[in-house]
């Protein structure tokens, strides 16, 4: 299993569209992916879960990935965070 701390840096936080991109990306992988903010841990493949994290800008989340393609999944997800979910400003 690998774990990484990532910061939500896009302006609007993990709202519907950003969450959709994250979930769509996560669903491409076989690994189990969870995202945790404080006490709350949600399935990274569930849009409702991700939205309900209420991760606004500058929130730090823990991404846990376990499975055969965990390395690749983490790399792609990290890229999404750094690219601010390709949000149009």
């Amino acid at each position, binding site marked *: 299993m690998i774990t990484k701390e990532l910061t939500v840096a896009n*302006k*609007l*936080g*993990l*709202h*519907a*569209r950003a*969450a*959709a*991109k994250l*979930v*769509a990306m996560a669903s491409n992988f076989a690994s189990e992916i969870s995202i945790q903010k404080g006490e709350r841990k949600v399935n990274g493949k*569930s*849009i*409702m*879960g991700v*939205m*309900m994290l*209420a*991760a*606004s*800008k*500058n929130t730090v989340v823990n991404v846990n990935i376990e499975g055969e393609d965990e390395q690749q999944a983490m790399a792609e997800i990290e890229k999404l965070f750094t690219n601010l979910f390709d949000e*149009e*400003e």
Partner: protein
Amino acid sequence: MALIISGIGVSRGIAIGNVHLLNRGAPEVFERKLEEHEVDSEIERFVSAVDEAAEQLRGIRDTIPEDAPKDVATFIDSHLLMVKDSMLSKVPIEIIQEEHCNAEWALKQQRDKLEAVFEQMEDDYLSTRLNDVEHVINLIQQILKDQQYTMQMKLQPLKGSIIVADDLTPADTVVMQNQNIAGFITELGGPLSHTAILARSLGIPAVVGIQSARSLLKQEEQLIIEGGSGMVLAGMDENTIKHYRHIQREQKDAQRKLGSLKNISAKTKDGQRISLQANIELSEDISALKKSGADGVGLYRTEFLYIDRETPADEAEQLNAYKKIIRVLKGKPLTIRTLDLGAEKEFDPDFQGPMTQNPALGLRAIRRSLKDTDLFKQQLRAILRASASGPVRILLPMITSHNELTQSLSLLDLAKQELTEEHKEFDADIPVGGMIEVPAAALSANILAKQLDFLSIGTNDLIQYTLAIDRIDDQVNYLYDPLHPSVLKLINLTLQAGRRADIPVAMCGEMAGDPRYTRLLLGLGLQEFSAHPSNLLEIKQIINKSKISDLEKQTKKILSTTVPSKIAPMVDALNQ
């Protein structure tokens, strides 16, 4: 009897059609207890409603017009993911099994639970995303209530009607475009709401923010909406309808004619090529820019990178924003105006200072930038780095004295030096221009011109400062007059200074975008107009029908006229 209602016009054009009231809020839901043997079929009913909802969303996704903002598809994708999310598609099944209740009731209970979570969220933007969840839940509820329910609204021929609804989802707007509806009115929403943006890009006249639209307007009643001003007209007589049909036809004809000008360059009949540039701000303006056939961007406002957001954009984000426009422009020049913040538009509490009586005369624009040189240099660095990707010009706002210019230029040199040391690429000869928007600058334009590569006249502020009139003050705004002899003199002085120094002079205020003044400005010698993209084709049409040599004599006469009231008729005569 005629009824006039006014709302917020968000998408221009006139629509005439019959009202189609759309009531698509949540249907009322009641609890019903199930017998043991009914549970399985109830679950089946729920599952097929969820499938149907997903199917309909997918269908709509496939019909999104190609030129719609990219966000629209992502929006509908997120709704699709929600429909299939276990919190909406599985949890209600468990509730049906445990409580032996009907599907509607199970879904409602889950909805209430979700609502409670969203309401606790501290971030306003995220907590309002409950709307998205509700759009999806309502869709499932509607299908549960009526198996024939369809978002496509195929059952009613909507062609030519005016939709009146509380609010519309992006999916609704896409559907409407495909059904050729005439226009729409909503109770909620503002000029920046998703639906408003979409309406503009699809060219559907729309008025939003009419709070009780659905109780004021009757089903099938004939309406006229004027999407520019936000006016809605009901119960009008035949003559009024005829009148508006006439205007509608004229607008459409004019639009078609203008569209054909897009790929022709602006050139007067005596062969003078005129540069037509666009003023832009938000990413929404980019699609308008593409349609305008502009020769470049004459004014890119950068305030949005600093205000109405949590923290100002850093160098990398700015660079990205600039590069995005450079890509769209494909080699045409981009003029970036540095930060024009002022006392009333400010993000940094350290600079808000005492609420001054006269914000327009306070610490703003270049003055503010020179007080916060770290922030200013960061922007200059981002602009310089962008200049490695395409032609970029820097425009300094509100220059008043030679001193400010010298300070800004040495800061620019410092930024260049830093970038050279960091081995970052930039255009070493990046042109630097100054806004002429203070009378002092216009009066000494010849001196400023020696240090600058171009000038750009900002008429809005120039008029306000010259005539000492605050345009948002209702008691004096009638005195705001672009044709005041003093204003024309200052414009003329600036143009002369540019010719003497052999540098280009542009105009980027509202006056440049107003077709009434195009010929006057041509006669004065203006060769670079910068205006909102939506005004450019109309200006081009006038330019291409004008001959500068015919205008010069008359504009000279106008310049020497001292009675303001005589000037307006002379300017109008130029347009005959």
